[in-house]
């Protein structure tokens, strides 16, 4: 008999620019990973009402992109997109994250999965980029917006400890 985990998501703020969500699911890690990453599954839970998801495109590989759009009852479009930076099935996904209604606030999302006794714990860390870091990237980027450079820069943000005040 599984317990009711509704409302059990824990949301914390490790720093001023990070949102860390932890949630456990009574399911094996492989299934949870699939439900997180396959469009045919994501369509069923991502949007507040499942039948209003208009775009659910996921290219699950390093450098691949995702794009999720749902439409609210009054016709407002909510669009999320990003690029995958790291994928280690079934334990880790790192991607860039942008909600298009909020252009200034791009972030790096790190999702980690860990199973113990049939319960999979999922942690999702959303780390918004620091303004100074973004300015730095723009200065050193040179000409155009190169995905390779962004990948290196964001990868270093994910790996190194960030000096967020």
């Amino acid at each position, binding site marked *: 008999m*599984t317990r009711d*985990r509704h409302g059990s998501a824990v949301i914390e703020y490790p720093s001023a620019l990070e949102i860390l*969500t932890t*949630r456990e699911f009574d*399911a*094996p890690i492989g*299934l949870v990973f*699939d439900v997180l990453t396959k469009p045919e599954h994501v369509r069923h839970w991502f949007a*507040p009402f499942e039948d209003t998801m208009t775009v659910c495109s996921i290219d699950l590989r390093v450098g691949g992109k995702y794009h999720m759009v749902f439409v609210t009852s009054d016709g407002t479009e909510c669009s999320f997109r990003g690029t995958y930076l790291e994928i280690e099935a079934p334990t880790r996904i790192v991607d860039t994250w942008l909600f298009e*209604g909020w252009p200034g606030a791009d972030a790096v999302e790190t999702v980690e999965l860990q199973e113990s006794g049939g319960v999979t714990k999922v942690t999702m860390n959303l780390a918004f980029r620091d303004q100074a870091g973004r300015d730095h990237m723009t200065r050193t980027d040179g000409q155009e917006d190169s995905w390779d450079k962004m990948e290196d820069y964001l990868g270093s943000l994910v790996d190194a400890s960030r000096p967020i005040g």
Partner: protein
Amino acid sequence: MSISEYVGVMARASTTSDVFNAVADVHRRQILDVLITGERAVGAIVDELSLSQPQVSKHLRVLSEVGLVSNRAEGRRRLYRLQPEQLAPLHDWVTTYERAISDRMDRMDDYLTDLQRQGDGSDA
């Protein structure tokens, strides 16, 4: 949580993102931390944080533009003060965001339960 609440917050996103962008700089957050303790002149902020005066002035300008700080003249000095009520939209966003995330995890949970009941198993 109703969808209209969720959308209302997202629709205010452009306003919120200005405050967010203002706060998304470590030096500006340090300046706000100084001003939490009271009004300060630019020189006092410079001394307390060991930033350069042009840097502090630039950051104060950004913070003023989004209404997070205000200033008044006192003699020849200009004193800056934190306007914390401007952080309220950010706080509202956070609260609504938390509910949206929690609800989304609950939907994922229900979906996983349904999938397993149907006997799809793992590695589908």
